[in-house]
């Protein structure tokens, strides 16, 4: 069943100097409970696409449907996780996590209890009263994810969530984030320009062209590993095969 439907979406930016077409007639469906990655070269329009889905930008044409309802403004069914964690330095971890609830005025006893449980489950309850600068980059990203999950969204949009982390941390954090998303049973749409990351985490990978973003191809990632996690996926024999295929599809020129 399709959770999110993107229909003939186009997006044009207007500035005094120029008119930039960022997304060109793009159609895509995200299935309920799946992890879909969108991969494309930098500057092709991936963040723009997510901003439209989140209701932050009005598309020039086309529309986005979530559970058959058109998205026109930000709504609490969509959770958005940005590239950097953007934790507020002046708030402690707990009140960073309740930020979304406060803004939507949904700080009920149950929702706070739910956050407590999540902190417990994901090994952060000891850090509730810490300030962001006291946490490592990986932990901060986990806090950012829980902040997004706190408003209980149906679908998670992740915009290059691990790009700011160093390689080892990135492997560890993507493992954790993947597990959290699966445990919470959320549908996820991740944007990245990292081919191995896309294959390791996703059920499907959509490849976009250079700007303006058009859909080039979609890969069904079928790996022969049991109890799939990103780290295990990287060891699957098919991994390299997908990597090469997507690499070719992306058409990156090595100079």
């Amino acid at each position, binding site marked *: 069943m399709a959770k999110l439907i993107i229909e003939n979406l186009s997006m044009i930016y207007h500035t005094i100097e120029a008119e930039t077409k960022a997304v060109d007639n793009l159609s895509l469906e995200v299935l309920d409970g799946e992890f879909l990655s969108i991969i494309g070269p930098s500057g092709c329009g991936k963040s723009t696409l997510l901003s439209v889905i989140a209701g932050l930008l009005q598309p020039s044409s086309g529309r986005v449907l979530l559970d058959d309802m058109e998205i026109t403004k930000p709504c609490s069914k*969509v959770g958005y996780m940005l590239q950097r964690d953007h934790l*507020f330095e002046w708030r402690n971890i707990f009140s960073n996590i309740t930020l979304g609830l406060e803004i*939507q005025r949904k700080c009920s006893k149950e929702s706070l209890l739910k956050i407590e449980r999540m902190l417990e489950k994901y090994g952060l309850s000891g850090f509730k009263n810490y300030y962001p600068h006291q946490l490592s980059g990986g932990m901060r990203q986990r806090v950012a994810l829980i902040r997004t999950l706190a408003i209980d969204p149906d679908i998670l949009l992740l915009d290059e969530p691990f790009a700011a982390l160093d390689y080892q941390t990135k492997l560890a954090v993507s493992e954790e984030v993947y597990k959290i998303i699966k445990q919470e049973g959320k549908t996820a749409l991740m944007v990245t320009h990292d081919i191995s990351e896309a294959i390791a985490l996703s059920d499907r990978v959509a490849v976009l062209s250079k700007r303006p973003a058009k859909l080039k191809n979609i890969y069904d990632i079928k790996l022969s590993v049991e109890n799939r996690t990103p780290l295990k996926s990287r060891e699957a024999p098919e991994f390299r095969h997908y990597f090469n295929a997507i690499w070719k599809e992306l058409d990156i020129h090595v100079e």
Partner: protein
Amino acid sequence: MLNNNFSKEHELYLKAVKRRKTAVIIVQILILIIFFLQWELTARYKIVDPFLVSQPSRMIKFMGKLYSEGMLFRHIWVTCYETIIGFLLGTIVGTLIAIILWWSDFICKVLDPYLVVLNALPKIALGPILIFWVGNGKTAIILIALTISLIVTIISVLTGFKEVDEDKIKLLKTFGASKSQILRYVVFPSSIPTMISALKINVGLSYVGVIVGEFLVAKEGLGFLIVFGGQVAQLDMVMLSIIILSISAYLMYEAVALLEKKFTVWRS
């Protein structure tokens, strides 16, 4: 995080740091003592003319006289009071105007050239007009202090507002935040460091405004003592007032610095 089991080397390092700090403070105090001592002695032995430069002992005597007349703290209080009020008003009104300009890009663009002109204008020039409007008195002095700090406050607070990370604002928008929520949750709190450095500048500016105001109209206050002392050729009065003025300006600056510490605990 704190760790109290230091190695020997670390303890030596800490000691060295501490020794250096003590040395700095000792030299600072020595400079003060030497300065006043040479002042006192050169004046006493007529190497410099005490009529022109005054003399610490005469200043202390004059301070005693002022105190016995019950006027010492009265003058200090008047100047501090006018400064604090001018300073607070400048900060509050300036921040409010900055909020309006942040809120409406249109108003901001329209007012931009006027702000530039007002910022370039030496605000003291407005003193006589203000006195003409509100009369000789505290109100005029406070208004002069206010006009001096107002424009700087508007400009620096607005700059702080505009420097807030666009992505932090985007984050709030994904939660469906309204404009006033964006102001309250991210723009205002993340500009607090900028605002506090504006406050620090404002303390100095407000003092300038108050002293000039007192030069122009006052019947009491440190600025009045300075002008009056000059007119009646009482350099003891002038010098003493200047020294008290420096001390009170310094204390007020420190108070703002304390405020800064309190509001930025999260930086540790």
